[in-house]
């Protein structure tokens, strides 16, 4: 059951082949068997089975939706009413959300079953899932390596078949990079396509939730539920949501693909480069036209990101002060002590580092040199994408410079860690949608191909990904031990 696609599962549920309770139980068993991956922070068996039971009734009584009875899991950044929502932090280790994020609410409405809450880098800050208060997640393809981050638990769980699909969030690559390292499909939608309400903020102008699944068709199904305007999120965009599955089988003949030369230069592992070349060739066979393009400002993305994101996070994380909820230090002697110790003890090292960087960048006398300059760079990068996407339909490139690196390998060197997002960050700064799809293996580890589209062109990206997945089967490979 656990290797089926969502459409197949929906069919099985309707034909009576299995019930949602059976399906859910099967996943719960697998999660228990594979605890060593540390993919989940919270598994709520009772709740999951209750939801499965309700789904079975709905399936029997009519009016089910495609996702009714299908077990998925939520990144622990989405607030779930009555269920612990930690954001991977000691700060929220005791936090039971009193409300549902809009995304969670939408999956509930659709009748999807929530298996549990997935591990992640603390407050989504990290590229290896090692900053989690709950410990590193292991990559199912090689348990000595990282699954990527920050949605590392989501990627590992989907790759290991511990959930059919999972939600992730992507601020600088947090869906695409772990999807690439774990050999699954991940989609970061256009900024504003998916509501951020109830998604704990890291960098508000960059954060975007999206689906993480094995294949593009499942991603289309999940995005269908997640996308849409939300009056509770002023930055969500009030545009109609297309039928994401409708165009999956459209032909790619005449598709214009741009390969930015800046993406294929120094720093990209040669085995990864070769793998990507093969994948791009596959597109040529499908009728696409490939051309080299240039996006001269891409090299500015990392420095700009590490001003904008920490600046926003330094304010976003101020609410975690030990006053109303979350971690509070023991016996504070006064207010300052309450603040400094609660935050000092509640936050981990990487979170503190980014809060400090952001605070610095916003300080009087530095604001213009950092924040304002970074905003200017951001506009330049957006221009690069606009110009490029005026010449070609989509941009393709690597997701990560290398395949999954070892646990502990980069955690001591923040700069090197930050560089693992070098191909993904610019996309968030521009706000365009992008996907990572499995494109083969290098040294036995998965390689992801990034497909970047124009604003709100998620349907086109899914079509392009799906067509590839009709001729290549990388997304069907199963890591050893998780068959």
């Amino acid at each position, binding site marked *: 059951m656990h290797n089926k696609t969502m459409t197949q599962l929906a069919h099985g549920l309707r034909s009576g082949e299995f019930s949602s309770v059976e399906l859910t139980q099967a996943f719960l068993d697998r999660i228990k068997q594979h605890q060593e991956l540390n993919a989940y922070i919270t598994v709520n068996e009772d709740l999951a089975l209750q939801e499965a039971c309700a789904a079975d009734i709905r399936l029997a009584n009519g009016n089910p939706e495609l996702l009714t009875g299908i077990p998925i899991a939520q990144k622990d950044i989405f607030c779930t009413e009555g269920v612990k929502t930690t954001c991977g932090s000691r700060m929220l280790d005791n936090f039971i959300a009193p*409300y549902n994020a809009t995304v969670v609410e939408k999956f509930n409405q659709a009748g999807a079953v929530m298996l549990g809450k997935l591990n992640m880098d603390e407050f989504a800050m990290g590229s290896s899932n090692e900053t989690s208060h709950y410990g590193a997640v292991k990559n199912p393809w090689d348990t000595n390596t990282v699954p990527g981050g920050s949605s590392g638990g989501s990627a590992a769980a989907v790759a290991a078949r511990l959930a059919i699909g999972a939600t992730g969030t992507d601020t600088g690559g947090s869906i695409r990079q772990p999807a690439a390292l774990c050999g699954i499909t991940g989609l970061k939608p256009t900024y504003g396509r998916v509501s951020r309400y*109830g998604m704990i903020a890291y960098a508000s102008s960059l954060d975007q939730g999206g689906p993480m699944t094995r294949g593009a068709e499942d991603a289309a199904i999940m995005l269908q539920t997640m996308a849409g305007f939300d009056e509770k999120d002023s930055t969500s965009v009030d545009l109609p949501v297309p039928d994401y599955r409708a165009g999956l089988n459209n032909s790619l003949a005449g598709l214009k693909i741009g390969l930015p030369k800046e993406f294929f230069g120094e720093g990209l592992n040669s085995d990864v480069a070769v793998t990507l070349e093969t994948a791009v060739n596959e597109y040529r066979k499908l009728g696409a036209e490939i051309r080299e393009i240039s996006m001269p400002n891409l090299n500015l993305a990392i420095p700009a990101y590490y001003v904008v994101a920490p600046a926003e996070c330094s304010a976003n994380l101020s609410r975690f002060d030990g006053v*109303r909820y979350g971690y509070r230090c023991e016996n504070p002697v006064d207010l300052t002590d309450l603040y400094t110790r609660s935050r000092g003890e509640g936050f981990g090292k990487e979170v503190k580092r980014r809060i400090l960087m952001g605070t610095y960048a916003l300080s009087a006398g530095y604001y213009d040199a950092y*924040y304002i300059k970074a905003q200017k760079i951001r506009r330049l990068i957006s221009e690069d994408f606009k110009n490029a996407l005026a010449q070609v339909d989509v941009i393709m490139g690597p997701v990560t410079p290398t395949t999954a690196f070892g646990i502990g390998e980069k955690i001591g060197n923040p700069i090197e860690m930050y560089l693992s997002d070098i191909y993904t960050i610019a996309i968030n700064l521009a706000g365009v949608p992008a996907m990572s799809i499995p494109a083969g293996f290098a040294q036995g580890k998965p390689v992801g191909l990034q497909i970047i589209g124009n604003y709100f062109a998620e349907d086109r990206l899914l079509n392009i990904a799906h067509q590839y997945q009709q001729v290549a089967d990388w997304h069907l490979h199963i890591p050893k031990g998780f068959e």
Partner: protein
Amino acid sequence: MEWETVIGLEIHTQLATKSKIFSGASTAYGAAPNTQACAVDLGLPGVLPVLNEEAVHKAVIFGMAIEAEISHYSVFARKNYFYPDLPKGYQISQMELPIVGPGHLDIEVDGVSKRIGITRAHLEEDAGKSLHEDFHGLTGVDLNRAGTPLLEIVSEPHMRSAKEAVAYMRKLHELVRYLDICDGNMQEGSFRCDANVSVRPKGQKEFGTRAEIKNINSFKFVEKAINHEIERQIELIETGGKVVQETRLYDSVKDETRSMRSKEEANDYRYFPDPDLLPVFISEDYKQQVKAQLPELPQAKKYRFNEQYALDDENANILTSSRQLADYFETVLKESGCEAKLCANWITGELSAALNKARLEIMESPVSHERLAGLLARISDNTISGKIAKQVFEEMWRSPATADEIIAERGLKQITDTGAIEAIIDKIIADNPGQVEQYRSGKDKVFGFFVGQVMKEMQGKANPGEVNKMLQAKLKQ
């Protein structure tokens, strides 16, 4: 040395919206602590602000009323600081691009009119309240007020005395209530003032170093706090000291200001645009719509009252001090069909005195405009005298009866029957030959005695004009 004072005011006006500026929670005052704070107001993880358009509307109304430039594009910013009653650790405010740009307000002090510049007015959310009493050394936090919309109105440093500052504050208070954008309730903190005060030698161009006095919540205290601060600064300079830029708190009990924090200790608020909120766009059409719907403003109304009703400045000023009072006056005028002056005198006199005594607003007046109009109509048509009318008014204040009912019930109808008055006059003249003699020998003052006697005999119901006329005629015979 002669000193000149320079004052600028920052006034926090609580906008009278039903719900908060970024959430759907109610803004009603006085609920049990933390019962009007929703997930957004509590700053829970994951929540997002959504701008209340009514707050923007009210800000634009204010901007149009002070003939300000309304920014067609304005931006919300985060002002970062930690405090337990600030749930998010930042206040959503406006910094570089406020919604209301430069405008002005005219004040009048001792008959001289002066234009005070308004630099800007920006929208922001209020914080909650920290409660230090009743918690045995701990602090309680009430977040009901958190997220209440405020319009912070910042004046230019154009005021030169505490008196001008108070006049400006009163004028602004009158205006926001006119516009119906703020309830003006100062006790509940709906209208609060911070004053920037400095002094400089008269004739000097540069400003002196200023101190900011925080949170002064009554007109009386503004005047006292500023005057006190002026004295403090002058004394300090004259004894060789230096004013330091700092924030001071006014203690109304001790009537003094004391230092809260100096500039060096001041927070770096690290303002930056709030990425959760889109910029606010105000179109020319929208501005024109708001302008077209603006009520008549106090100044214009006053001039109109002067002109249209031939009222003196004093009456016109009082009657236009609130929109409700002005409306009350115009309604009474229309309903009674009386002279404007009579209506004005009664409303600014008897009625206002009674309201003040009972600490009531005009809207809460026990004597409705219909009933007052009924009373004034009876004065006008000579059914009762002004003096009797006061008795009737007192009765009306206590009971729901109309003037006509009270007049009928108590038999207060004025006697205009000349025959009846004549008989009484003849009797009084006959009974008081000594006084008659005095009057006829030129002591005019005795005339009042006769009027009094006649009125007394007729229990005040005689028409005074008629009595005068007839008495004069009789006494001359």
